């Protein structure tokens, strides 16, 4: 089979899987939030509301696509696509499992995999900041300026929490990192790094309690206030796909990827991977239902004065320990 055909088939399968997971992650979030707030959640469309994503999709596609008169047409239309493209782009290099012969299940196996994830992830901010700017309206602009500051600040601590894992694994390729966790998951030696990653990941995906970017009590809906119909839908998809991405990365870097815990190898590795990712997704939904939103200056102070020094300290200690024990 030629390489391009193989990549094409893998991409189509992955696209289908990711979009379906997005649809049901959205439904699951509404259901879980409902149960946590003592209400049933969506339950009208199909049994237990299982067809709700299809109804939502139909609604978004059929809605009118509005654009404010003051908007910048080109960038206004481009921004949702940048968001979506960077959100999906990461999946080109995320491995989901390994066959018995040691082949990894991924579209591309890149040597600098984890750095590439950081690189693509760092482009995601353009969708938000260009979209907010191009709307030509004040609330989106405020939201996008906030998001730019927030994402840049938290990216630093996030990258540093990655480096601790790199030092332990001695490689930047993602399957190498997972293989290095065959005995011990890195959440044990990198406990501090793991906590820092989980916190910064919430901030990077602009989820509650760090959703200052779209804080509805102050900014109407933040950067996507002016968007409607399918363009709003694209931003929405990008947010959930990003959530899925950070869950996958946390699983790969800190929770052993597709390695089975306690030698429970009769369950295949891919299943373990999915189980771990689902646990993370549930955790993020749980956070949204539990924690109130932070005040903006406290968010920035927390990122720069607590997380960044802590991540640096963690990296230095890890490096010293690895240098001495070899």
């Amino acid at each position, binding site marked *: 089979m030629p390489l391009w055909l193989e990549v094409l088939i893998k991409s189509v399968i992955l696209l289908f899987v990711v979009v379906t997971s997005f649809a049901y992650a959205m439904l699951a979030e509404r259901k879980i939030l409902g149960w946590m707030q003592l209400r049933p959640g969506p339950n009208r469309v199909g049994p237990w509301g299982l067809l709700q994503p299809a109804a939502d999709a139909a609604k978004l596609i059929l809605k009118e696509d509005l654009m404010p008169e*003051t908007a*910048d047409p080109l960038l206004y239309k481009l921004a949702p696509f940048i968001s979506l493209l960077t959100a999906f782009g990461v999946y080109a290099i995320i491995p989901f499992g390994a066959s018995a012969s040691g082949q990894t299940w991924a579209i591309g196996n*890149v040597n*600098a995999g984890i750095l590439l994830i950081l690189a*693509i992830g760092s482009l995601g901010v353009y969708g938000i900041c260009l979209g907010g700017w191009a709307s030509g309206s004040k609330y989106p602009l405020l939201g996008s300026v906030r998001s*730019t500051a927030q994402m840049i600040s938290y990216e630093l601590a996030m990258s540093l929490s990655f480096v601790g894992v790199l030092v332990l694994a001695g490689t930047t390729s993602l399957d190498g990192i997972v293989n290095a966790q065959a005995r011990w998951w890195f959440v044990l030696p990198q406990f501090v790094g793991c906590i820092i990653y989980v916190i910064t990941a919430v901030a990077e995906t602009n989820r509650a309690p760090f959703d200052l970017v779209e804080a509805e009590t102050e900014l109407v809906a933040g950067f996507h206030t002016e968007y409607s119909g399918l363009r709003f839908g694209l931003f929405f998809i990008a947010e959930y796909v990003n959530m899925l991405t950070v869950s996958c990365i946390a699983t790969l870097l800190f929770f052993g990827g597709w390695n089975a815990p306690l030698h429970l190898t009769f369950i295949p590795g891919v299943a373990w991977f999915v189980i771990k990712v689902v646990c993370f997704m549930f955790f993020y939904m749980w956070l949204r239902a539990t924690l109130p939103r932070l005040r903006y200056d406290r968010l920035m102070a927390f990122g720069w004065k607590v997380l960044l020094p802590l991540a640096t300290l963690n990296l230095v200690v890890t490096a010293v320990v690895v240098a001495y024990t070899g």
Partner: protein
Amino acid sequence: MIAFWVLAAILIASAVWTIAAKKPVYSVVALLLNFATLAVLYVTLSAEFLAVIQIIVYSGAILVLFVFVIALLGSGVAPFPTGPNRLPKIWLPAGIFTLAAFGFLIYAVSTVKMAAAPATGAVGNADVFGSVADFGKALFTVQLLPFEATGLVLMVAVIGVITLGGEQMSDAEAQQSRMRADRAVREAILREGKG
């Protein structure tokens, strides 16, 4: 080879767009395209690490700050008033200079003996030219002095910015200004509660 020509065309087009665009934001978007294309070009030259760093540092950090500043400036701001068109006077010397520079470049490239292309192993192998391990080894052994010197130069810039932009405040003053800010926030919250 086809990839190179396509990339080169995109690179030059986006570079021209960067300086020709009327709106500053379009310049940033064009520059973003330029950086991304450059990163792809690095990948085709099997400098994987350089490509990734190009995106993380330039596209992911520096360019975002450009957007940040432009967003604060507001939409459609022309930063400089368009003065008298001085192009007619300088196009001849500028053209001659550009041609001479290109001629020199072509001469230099044609006379220099190219080193044989380094062997590129399978993707994922360490110790391959351009890989992270290779890059790191070069950076911390052979190129250590330039690397540290660059760090020092950047440090000077950071200290300069802090000296120029930072307010001189004693500890007591800083404490006072913090308390003032806190009080303002609390009063604002109270006002909102009443209203």
